[in-house]
């Protein structure tokens, strides 16, 4: 590292009560490839959004090329300083062509002949990074499969017009690429770095990180906890740096486990997202984990079970969302209404919902879940995130459902709440309820009787409680990592 390309100093960022970044300092040299790893929610994406100017930091300084930046750091400031970002969720306009999407990020592509220039630019960069890509610059994005969209967006980030490229941030760039194209990208990154451009690479594929980066920073709980040259890391030390030392919360009760596995089957379903895959089987009273990297088909599995397509289900279902805002909460309603919506049928008398019964049910679950509010008739948004999540648990558990599907429900929830909820889940399972629990947090798998590890939409391993170690799960998740 000879010269600093960009530097963050003590950057903090909060979302409401959640502390996404707790004072991060980061330096990227010009011509350096920096790897950034950490579990979900460690703050990697927030940090990248701040670098790209789409989020502003609550606190901290940003320096470019050694000089401290004064004034508001914004999208346009980042752009004119040659910073480009490939976000995890794609940022292309689906109704535009590849070339038109290139035009979107280049203010200078206008006037006579802009079309040809941006077509040439797009095609040249695609050819350079992904030889044999099979993408036409006039193809509409919505006509391209997801993998090619990602290739188009990556190529777009490296296109060059009037502003020299200083830093390109790639957030999980290979998540939709096949092994060949992923390798093409990693090779290209090395050649770019050799030319003096800096790259920040964020990936769950540790093999990619170890093989491509010069230096690796490990993030945890909104902080950078470890930083070493890539050569000083190997897969084990990296996992150790990312992970938490897990203490076993539960002593294994072999008798209970045996009893559970002999209970009648509650769910039998085969993932529709892959052709060659095992079945998911859950016995009554079991807690079944769905593990693996995020976005590898776990949520789709839950939705498949929920909509009872290609699945044998013996009991009523309830769903606990992880993405509270888009899948769970009814914003305009009180806490009580949010709890009872799944159970209204049982509160009917001559076709009308009995008010007392409804508030009774809400009060009962306020106590049982420990929802912290002075009044269940307050709007749901008066609750903290953790208590909103408890409300969603109460909604499902108050219902008649015998099977509870959980879509990584503890995302961004404080540890106190978590422990209370884990306790609740264990108790409900002993009472005969079946849980299917998609989780991205290793510790939570310790509460499961069994876990299925997902990779590319298929079940790649089924691990019993005693085999649920971080190493084994990661191994199953990465078994055919794209470039390892």
């Amino acid at each position, binding site marked *: 590292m000879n010269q600093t390309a960009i530097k963050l100093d003590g950057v903090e960022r909060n979302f409401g009560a959640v502390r996404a970044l707790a004072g991060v300092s980061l330096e990227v040299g010009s011509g350096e490839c920096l790897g950034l790893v950490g579990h979900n929610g460690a703050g990697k994406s927030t940090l990248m959004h701040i670098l*790209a100017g*789409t989020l502003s930091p609550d606190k901290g300084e940003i320096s470019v090329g050694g000089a401290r930046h004064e004034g508001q750091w914004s*999208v*346009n400031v980042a*752009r004119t300083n040659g910073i480009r970002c490939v*976000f995890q969720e*794609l*940022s*292309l*306009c*689906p*109704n*535009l062509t590849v070339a*038109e*999407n290139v*035009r*979107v*990020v280049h*203010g200078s*592509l*206008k*006037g006579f002949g*802009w*079309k040809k220039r941006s077509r040439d630019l797009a095609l040249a960069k695609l050819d350079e990074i992904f030889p044999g890509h099979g993408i036409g610059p006039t193809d*509409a994005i*919505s*006509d391209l*499969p*997801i993998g090619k*969209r990602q290739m188009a967006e990556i190529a777009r980030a490296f296109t060059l017009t009037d502003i020299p490229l200083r830093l390109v941030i790639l957030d999980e760039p290979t998540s939709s690429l096949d092994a060949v194209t992923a390798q093409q990208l990693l090779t290209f990154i090395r050649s770019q770095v050799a030319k003096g451009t800096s790259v920040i690479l964020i990936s769950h594929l540790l093999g990619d990180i170890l093989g491509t980066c010069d230096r690796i920073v490990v993030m945890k709980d909104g902080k950078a906890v470890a930083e070493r040259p890539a050569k000083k890391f190997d897969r084990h030390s990296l996992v150790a740096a990312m992970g938490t030392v897990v203490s076993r919360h539960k002593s294994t009760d072999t008798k209970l486990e045996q009893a559970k596995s002999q209970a009648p089957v509650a769910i039998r379903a085969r993932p529709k997202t892959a052709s060659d895959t095992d079945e998911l089987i859950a016995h009554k009273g079991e807690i079944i984990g769905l593990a693996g990297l995020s976005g590898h088909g776990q949520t789709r599995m839950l939705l498949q079970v929920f909509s009872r397509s290609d699945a044998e289900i013996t009991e009523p279902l309830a769903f606990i969302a992880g993405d509270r805002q888009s899948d769970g909460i009814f914003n305009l309603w009180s806490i009580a209404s949010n709890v009872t919506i799944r159970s209204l049928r049982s509160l009917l008398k001559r076709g009308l919902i009995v008010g007392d019964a409804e508030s009774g049910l809400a009060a009962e679950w306020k106590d049982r879940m420990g929802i912290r509010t002075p009044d269940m008739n307050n709007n749901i948004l008066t609750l903290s995130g953790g208590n909103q999540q408890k409300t969603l648990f109460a909604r499902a558990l108050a219902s008649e459902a015998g099977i509870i599907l959980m879509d990584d429900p503890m995302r961004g929830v404080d540890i106190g709440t978590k422990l209370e909820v884990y306790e609740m889940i264990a108790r409900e399972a002993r009472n005969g309820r079946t849980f299917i629990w998609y989780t991205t947090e290793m510790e939570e798998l310790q509460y499961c009787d069994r876990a299925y590890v997902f990779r590319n939409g298929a079940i790649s391993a089924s691990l019993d409680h005693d085999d649920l170690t971080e190493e084994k799960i990661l191994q199953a998740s990465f078994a055919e990592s794209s470039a390892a």
Partner: protein
Amino acid sequence: MNRSLLRSLLPIISLAVVLGATFYVQPRTMSYFGLNLMLQYAVPIALATIAQMFIITVNDLDLSIGPFVGLVGCISATLLYSNPLLGTLALLLCIAAYAAVGALIHSRNLPSIVVTLGLSFVWLGIAVLILPSPGGKAPEWLKSIMALQTPFIPFPIIAAVVIGLVVQLALMHSSFGVIARGAGGNPRAMARAGWSMLKTKAAMYALAGFFGVLSGLSLLGLTTSADAHVADRYTLYSIAGVILGGGEFIGGRVSPMGAVIGALTLALAGSFLIFLRISPDWQIGAQGAILILVLALKAPLTTRDASK
């Protein structure tokens, strides 16, 4: 690929079918004079449809374009007739008002349907104030433009094609057009790339206002006298025209040429139904049926965006 090709051809196929059916039912329409007569009103409808299309491009809807076209007619038949300078100024003010509404809708995140619904009352009210009962006079130059006799191909067809091509060029092939359509396709990504959505929306509304003014002028040139209510139906025509032309309400997917073709189809369908000697009772119903039929054809061709 094939499906998207078929989708883009659908407006032309619909037009060809309606045109063919008209010629079949009434062969005499297959002449310069016949076409001229049948498509007379296609020009103002096409212009109003283009105006609507600009609004739909940015995921909004304009329920006030019909009364606005009527208002423009009233201003032009009075103010523009007696005092061209003042009249021009008034029309420019109308366009500025459209831009301001676009900015207001964006900055306060308002539902465009409701705001433009209220706006339709305002336009109508101003029109009625200016011209309480039908009357006024179209400026001579306007009348002579609309009565233009072009050689071989009737004027309305030439005008419609020119309008379609110009807007097609501006929206689908210019570098500004990319930003405008991107604003409908993925507003968040556009903001991330550093574009001001406020400016884009205001510009699109201003363009809609401009084409609304053109529509009002051309309609007045045909009717020669104004009426506040003359274009009330244009709101519905313009929306239907955009959709018939392959546009979609959400996602910045529009086609200017398609919209013009959709407007032509609607104008023709009216004549066709008259020639078909469908009882006048069922005229409007048949229009509804045609609309449903075309949209039903579109349903299986609509690709679901995989990312959403």
